């Protein structure tokens, strides 16, 4: 994602994402206006729904947890110039891994053993689902984009088949597993807060959020502070150069995709261990794709990803509020905003870069004193 025109780093990291979001919001606002509602009113409803109402912040952070995981997944792959659009399927299979562990051991192990095991299983299942396309790209030359798309559908088919078949709880109709025992439940943040004597409104926010933040630290250490991270970035910048430097590029691609898939798989701990306490059909509901928008906005950096996840968390939670307040606009509005953000920050990335580089160049050059442009 390097730009053709040099832009100061602060502008590329701070200004461009801001412009992208604003443009997306303006376009969506125009759609709202055409529909016949007041876009500013809609905006206020979303902001209130995301931050102001009791417990709404918890909901926002709960959604953000999902997006941190899937955003990190996309970002790690991006660093190796791999486009993993299979986050959806990897997260789905992560839910299978976590679910299987809980179904097998939830009456056997205490929470302190069971939950880590389930987390490992969710990451492991996701990792395998990411590593296979990685292998096919590295060794068989199939395009990772196409393979990961196919793997999303394959994951969906497998899950329908299992949840409507073997894993379905006996004696019920809906395609989902039985509920797990309390051992498999990640504690809610409001329960923890209440235990410490703090008043906190109920929300689905659970300990997964902390796991997600730890994953951010982990990804930062991996990409910028480890040998493997160096190999990943080198492969991303120039496969040829990496190979010359003795980096086993194929292996790096497979490992990167495994890590990416693992991170996406861990999204399941928020949904399955944190909230649903059983594996259900379609619990990923597009969060894997949102991860792409998050990674694009967050410039593939953990800090950026946390911020972008908060934004999308707020959009999702605020969007849900639209359903209650308006009869004509619904949460699907958020999909529209999301699509526009992906369009502006990804597909049309250079649309703002060039003019902005020009404007900033004109503004900043005199102050530097006509010196040589650097960087």
């Amino acid at each position, binding site marked *: *994602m390097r730009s*053709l025109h040099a832009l100061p780093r602060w502008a590329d990291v701070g200004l461009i994402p801001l412009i992208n979001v604003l443009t997306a919001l303006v376009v969506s606002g125009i*759609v709202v206006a055409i*529909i*016949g509602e007041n876009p500013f009113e809609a905006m206020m409803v979303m902001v209130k729904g995301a931050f102001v109402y009791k417990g709404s912040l918890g909901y926002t952070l709960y959604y953000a947890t999902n997006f941190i995981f899937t955003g990190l997944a996309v970002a790690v792959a991006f660093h190796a110039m791999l*486009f993993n*659009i299979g986050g959806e399927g990897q997260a789905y299979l992560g839910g299978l891994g976590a679910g299987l562990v809980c179904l097998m051991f939830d009456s056997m192990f205490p929470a302190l053993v069971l939950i880590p095991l389930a987390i490992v299983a969710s990451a492991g299942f996701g990792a395998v689902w990411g590593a296979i396309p990685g292998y*096919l790209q590295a060794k*068989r*030359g*199939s*395009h990772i*984009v*196409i*393979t990961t*798309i*196919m*793997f999303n*559908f*394959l994951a969906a*088919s*497998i899950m*329908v*088949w299992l949840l*409507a078949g073997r894993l379905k709880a006996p004696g019920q109709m809906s395609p989902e597993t039985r509920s797990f025992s309390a051992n498999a439940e990640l504690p809610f943040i409001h329960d923890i807060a209440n235990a410490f004597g703090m008043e906190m409104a109920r929300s689905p926010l659970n300990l997964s959020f902390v796991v997600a933040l730890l994953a951010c630290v982990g990804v930062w250490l991996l990409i910028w502070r480890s040998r493997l991270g160096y190999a990943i970035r080198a492969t991303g910048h120039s496969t040829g150069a990496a190979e010359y430097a003795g980096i086993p590029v194929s292996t790096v691609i497979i490992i990167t995709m495994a890590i990416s898939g693992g991170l996406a798989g861990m999204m399941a701990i928020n949904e399955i261990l944190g909230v649903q306490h059983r594996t259900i059909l379609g619990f990923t509901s597009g969060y894997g*794709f949102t991860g*792409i928008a998050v990674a*694009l906005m967050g410039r593939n950096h953990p800090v950026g990803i946390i911020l972008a996840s908060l934004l999308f968390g707020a959009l999702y939670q605020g969007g849900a509020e639209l359903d209650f307040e308006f*009869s*004509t*606009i*619904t949460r*699907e*509005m*958020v*999909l*529209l*905003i*999301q*699509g*526009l953000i*992906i*369009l502006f920050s*990804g*597909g*049309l*990335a*250079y*649309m703002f870069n060039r003019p902005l580089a020009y404007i900033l160049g004109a503004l900043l050059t005199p102050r530097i004193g006509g010196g040589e442009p650097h960087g």
Partner: protein
Amino acid sequence: MADLWLQFLLTIDATLRVATPLILCAMAGIFSEKSGVIDISLEGKMLMSAFAAAAVAALTSSALVGLITAIGVSILLGLLHGLASITMRGNQVISGLAINILASGLTVTVGIAMFQQGGQTPNLARVERFRPIELPLAEHLGGVPFVGSIYREVVSGHNILVWIALTAVLFTAFILTRTRFGLRLRAVGEKPEALDSAGVSVTRTRYLALIIAGVLCGMAGAYLSTAHGSGFVREMTAGKGYIALAAMIFGKWQPRGALLACLLFGFLEAVASRLQGVEVPLIGEAPVDLILALPYLLTVILLAGFVGKAMPPRAIGEPYLKER
């Protein structure tokens, strides 16, 4: 025996119906990808045009006006994809994905605003849909052994868009291999600099390819909501655009191959829907979900080069930067 034969013919008939949008979209994909532009936005273009066709057909009571609008909407999305991936030299996959997500959001949002039916359009009346065309003498010849039953069950009774889809395959093959534009289109996907130095505009050729792709996707969408179905339902494309993409790859970016792949994938779907809830000897209940997953699995296997090798156009996915 006669019953089994009829069952078979009905499955083949269903195959054609299911394969029609796949064929149209796969041909669209061939135009766009042969010109060097990755097009995963087939899904979104089809979804938006399905909505446009049904919405406009409901408002104007004319299936034809619906179809024309659908094509227009789909072309516009194609131009947006072109703006991102040709003019702005952005990432083509991301642009396509954005269009797909945009389409999911926009169809439901506008649908609710227009019809207040949870994102659906009203049920379309007869005149607002493309009706089956009974071929002459279909009922009379139906009694003729073998040929007659094929004529009545499989050949007769399709709507115009099915026939257009089949013609589109011939059209695509003809354009690509027999016209100057087709030659340029293929060249622009393999070696754009060659075309550029010959004085042909790479940008123009790619935009034209995307416009043709838009027309084809528009017809596919209109087929779903105003011919095959009778109205728009949210997310009604349900991954068909991606299956068409898979079929195009499976057919190695060739019209004939893609047609066969679409028919194969359509056949799998037709069989799966017939086997819904049917007990199969030895296996038990037919694993319908797994049969439906076969197109994706087959495509992965083919792409991995385990059976044959699918080679994409060489310059695919790379924005062309004209040298100065």
